C-alpha cells in the first residue's frame, strides 16, 4: 500500500538546517498494523505527516497504492487524503464549536455524501464506538477517553484504507488507552491498514511490526508474533 524510498525532509531556518528524514525507505502492506517508535526528534511525526499527505518531502519517492504522490499539489493531496486516510491524534483535535455528531460528520461533508446517508453512517460509527448517547455534546463536555473515541469515529467514518495514529493514547489514562488500542486493533482486523507513532512499548505490542527510528532513519524492525 505504501512504499517510500530514500525519503528526505529537511527543515531550514536562516541559520540552522535540520534533517528530519534522511533517505528513509519503508514499505507498509495492505492490512498491516505498523508501530513507529523512537526518541523525540527522530522524525516519527514528520514521517507520519508525509504519509498522511499533510506535508511534502524534499526528496525521494512515495508510492501510495502504486501511484507516485510525493509531488502532488495541495488539491490532489486533499482529494487523495479525504478518500483514503483517517487520522487519530494524541490531542484528539476535535473542533470545539461542533458537537460530537458534527465532528464525526465533517469528513463526509467534504467528500460530498448526501445528508441522509451521512446521518446513517455517523450514527452507525458512533454506535460502534459506544458514544451514541453523547452525540449532541460538545468536545469539552466529554472525558479524554470519550474524546479520543470520537476522534477514532471521525477517522473511520469515511471508511479509509489507512489510519494514521499519532500517539493516540498519549493523553489518556491506561484504561481509556487500552480501550482505544482495542478499537484500532478491531479496525485493523476488519482490514484497515494502521500506522501508529507511539512512545509506549505497551501500545506498540498491539501492532504487527515495530519500526524503530533514530536521526531520521529506520534503525531496527521488530516483527511481533
Amino acid at each position, binding site marked *: 500500500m505504501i512504499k517510500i524510498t530514500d525519503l528526505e525532509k529537511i527543515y531550514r531556518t536562516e541559520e540552522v538546517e535540520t534533517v528530519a528524514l534522511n533517505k528513509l525507505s519503508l514499505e507498509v502492506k495492505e492490512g498491516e498494523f505498523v508501530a513507529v517508535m523512537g526518541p523525540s526528534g527522530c522524525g516519527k511525526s514528520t514521517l507520519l*505527516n508525509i504519509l498522511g499527505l499533510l506535508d511534502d518531502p524534499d526528496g525521494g519517492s512515495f508510492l501510495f497504492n502504486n501511484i507516485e504522490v510525493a509531488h502532488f499539489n*495541495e*488539491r490532489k493531496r486533499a482529494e487523495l*487524503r479525504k478518500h483514503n486516510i483517517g487520522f487519530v491524534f494524541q490531542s484528539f*483535535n*476535535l473542533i470545539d*464549536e461542533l458537537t460530537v455528531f458534527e465532528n464525526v460528520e465533517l469528513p463526509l*461533508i467534504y467528500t460530498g455524501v448526501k445528508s441522509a446517508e451521512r446521518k446513517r453512517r455517523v450514527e452507525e460509527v458512533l454506535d460502534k464506538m459506544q458514544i451514541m448517547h453523547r452525540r449532541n455534546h460538545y468536545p469539552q463536555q466529554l472525558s479524554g477517553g470519550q474524546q479520543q473515541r470520537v476522534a477514532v469515529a471521525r477517522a473511520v467514518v469515511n471508511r479509509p484504507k489507512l489510519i494514521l495514529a499519532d500517539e493516540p493514547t498519549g493523553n489518556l489514562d491506561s484504561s481509556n488507552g487500552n480501550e482505544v488500542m482495542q478499537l484500532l486493533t478491531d479496525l485493523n482486523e476488519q482490514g484497515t491498514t494502521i500506522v501508529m507513532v507511539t512512545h509506549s512499548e505497551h501500545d506498540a505490542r498491539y501492532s504487527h511490526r515495530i519500526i524503530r527510528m533514530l536521526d531520521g532513519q529506520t534503525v531496527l524492525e521488530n516483527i511481533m508474533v
Partner: protein
Amino acid sequence: MKFNYVKIAIRNLLKYRFVSFINLFGLTVGLTCCLLIATYVLHETSYDRYNDHADRIYRVTRSFNDPETGVQSLHLGTVAPPFAPLLQHDFAEIEKYTRLLPVGNIAVRYNDKMFYESNTYFADEYLFDFFKVQVVRGDPTTALREPNTIMLTEEVAKKYFGQEDPLDKIIRADNRLSLKVTGVYKPFPANAHLHPSLMISFNTLRDSAIYGEENLRTNWGNNAFLTYLMLPAQYDVQKLKAGFPDFLDKHMGNAGMESYKLSQWTQLHLQRLTDIHLHSHLDSEAEENGDIRRVYIFSAIALFILLIACINYMNLSTARSALRAKEIGIRKVVGARRKEIIVQFLCESVLLCWLATLLAFVLTWQLLPSLNKLSGQQLHIPILLQSKVLIPLLIVPFVVGLLSGLYPALFMSSFKPAKVLKGLFKAGGSNLSFRKVLVTAQFAISIILIVCTAIVFRQMKYMQEKSLGFDRDHIVTLPYFTALDNQFEAFRSHLLSGALVKNATRSSRIPTGRLLDAMESSMANGDTMMPITATIKFLSADYEFINTYGVKMVAGRNFSKEFGTDSASYIINEAAVSLLGFKSPQEAVGKSFSYGGKDGRLIGVFNDFHFESMHQRIVPLLIRIPPAGTAYNNISVKISGQNIQAALAHLEKTWKQFLPEVPCQYTFLDENFNRLYQSEQRQGALFTVFAGIAIFIACLGLFGLSAFTISQRVKEIGIRKVLGASVNNIVVLLSSDFLKLVAIAALIAFPVAWYAMSNWLQDFAYRTNIAWWIFPLAGIIAAIVALVTICFQAIKAAVANPVKSLRNE
C-alpha cells in the same frame, strides 16, 4: 455543506462575542454612514430625471465675453425672450420649447389675505410637455393658455382659499394684475431644479402694460427667461450647437460692434436638463444648485468609512487567527480543500455583513431626519427602496463581506495542518506586518478627515470674520415698489423721524446678491472717448447708499443733492480704478466718463467692498444715480442696535402708511449674508460628523486589536514585571508600537490632505491659508485618541498580577 458553513459561522460569532461585537458594530456604523450618504448621492443625482423626456430636454444658456481676449465675463442660465421661437424656426430638429420668466417677490392678495410669494413664474402652456406636473384641479392643456390666468400649488391654494374651491377665483398680484385661478397642482418634486409655487400664464406678458409683444419679439437685452428645448431622442446636440454662431449673427446683426462678429461677443449654449442641478453654476440660476464635487467628496468619505470598517474586520480576524488555527488544521486533515476553507471564512464575513446591513437599514431610517436637519436636505428612505437601487444594495453585503473577508480567508486557509496541529503556529510575521499596514491606513484616513474638517471650519470663520468693507449690522432690507417713486423722500423722512432709524436708501441690487448688470463704457483720452472693452458692472442707487452701508470714499466725494449735476456723475470702486489704468484713486476723480451711452464725470472713488459672496472676486463696479423712471428693486434701512423691536415697529408703521396694500416683509442683511455660506456650513457640519465616525470606528478596531495583541503578550508582561518593569514601563512598551503607526499614518496623510484642501480652497476667491500647525495638531489628536484607546488595555495588562499570568502560561 453550506448549512455547515452558516452553522459554524454563527457559533464562531457567538463564541468570540467581543470581537464579533466590535466587527458588527464597526460594520453597522460604517454601512449606516454609507447608506445615509448613498441616500444623499442618489437624491442629488436624481434631479429632474423623473420627467418623461428628461434625456431630450435642454436648457438654453447665454454667455458674454471680451471679443479680443475671449475671457468670459458673464454666463447666464436664462436668455432673452426672442431666442426660443427663432431657434425653433431656424432649427427643424427642435420639436418644441417652453419658457418661464421668474418674477421674484410679488405681493398676492385674495380678499383680506395678502402674502408675499417668492416662487412665482410666468409660464407657457407647453411647460407640461416638458415637466411632469401633477395637476389636481383644472386642465393642464388649457390652464395656462389665456392671459391673466394663474395656477397655484395645493399649498398656496389652501393658504388663500382654505376649503373654498379655488377655480375661477380672482386674485390680485402686486396690486396691478387681476388673475383668474385656472388650475391647482402638486408641488414640483424636491428633486426638481425649480419649484414654481405660482405660475401666471405666459400670454399675460403679451399685454404691453405688462411686458408687451414687441418686447418678447425683439428685446435681446433682457436675458431673464428660462428657455427649454425638446430635441429628438438620441439626437447629437453638437450639430445644433454648431449652428448657433451663424444663428446669432443672422438675427442679432452686429449690435453696434463694427470690428467683431456678434457671435464673438455672445454665445448660446445647451445644458442637458439632468445636468443642471449638479453641473451648472451660472450667474443666474432658477434656484441654488448642488455641486457634483460635493457628491464626489461625500462618496469618497463613505468609501473611506466603509474601508475603515472593513480594515477592522481584516485586522481582528487575522489577529485571532491563532485561535482558529487548530480548527483549520483539523478541517484540512479530514479532507477540506483550501477552496472550501476560503469559502467557509467568506461565509462568516458575508453573514456578519448581512447582519450589519440589516441593522444599518434600521439605523438609516432612524437617523435620516437628523441628517436632513443637519444638511438642509429632504432625503427620504424610499429612494433606497427602488429596485434599481435596492438590488445593488443587496449585493453590498457580499461585496463588503468579500472585501473584508478575503484576506483573512486567504491567510488562514494557507495554514499547514501539520504545523498548526502540533501547536507550532504563531500569529506574527507577514501577517503582523500586514495588520500594521491596515492600522496605519485607518489612521491616515482619520488624520486626513481631521485636517479637512479643520480647514473647512477655518475657511468658514475667515469668511465670517473678514472685513467686508461695509457695515452689515442692523441693516434691514425690503422690496421696493414703484408706488414709492414719487413719495420716497417723504417715506424716508418719516422713517428718519424715529430716532431708531439712522438712514435709508434705494438701490437696484443689495449686497449679498449678484452684480450682473453691465453696460458699455468709454473714457476720455485726449479729445476722444475711447471704449473700454473690459466689463464694469453697475449698481443704480440713490444719494444715501454709500452712507447707509458705511462704505468709505477713498477719493473725491459721494453723490450729493447739493450738486445739481450728479445725475450725470459716477462713482467707482478701487478695482475699477485699476482696470481703467489710473495710478491712484485721486487721478480718476474729475475724468470724463461715459456709461451706457450717457456722458458724465467720475466724481469719487469708494473702497472695494464685498458686494457679492467671498466665492466671487471683487469686480470693477460703478454706482450711478439712475434716470428717472428706472425702477429700484430694494430698500435698505439702517436701524439702531439699541432697540431693534421698536425700530422695526416704526418701520412697519411707516410702511403701512405709505404702502397700505402691500405687506411689510423685511429681512436682515446679516441673515442673507449667513445664507450665502449655508451650504459650506452644512458641509462643515457633515464633515465633522463623518470624520468623527471614521475616527470612532478606527478606534474601535484599535481597541479590539490592542486587546488581542496585549492578551498575546501576557506572559512577556509577566516576565518583565518579575524582572522589575514598572506599570509605566509596560504601558509605554505596549503603546509605543501603535503610536509609531500613528506617526507613519500622519506622514502619509499630510500631503494628501494638503493637496485635497488646496483644491477645495480654489473655489473661494478669498480664502484662508492652510496653516502649518493644523497638520501636527491633527496628528496629535489622532495620537491622543489612539493612546487613550490603547492605554485602557495596556494599564489593565500592566497592573495584572504577573504570578497569575505566568501560572496560566
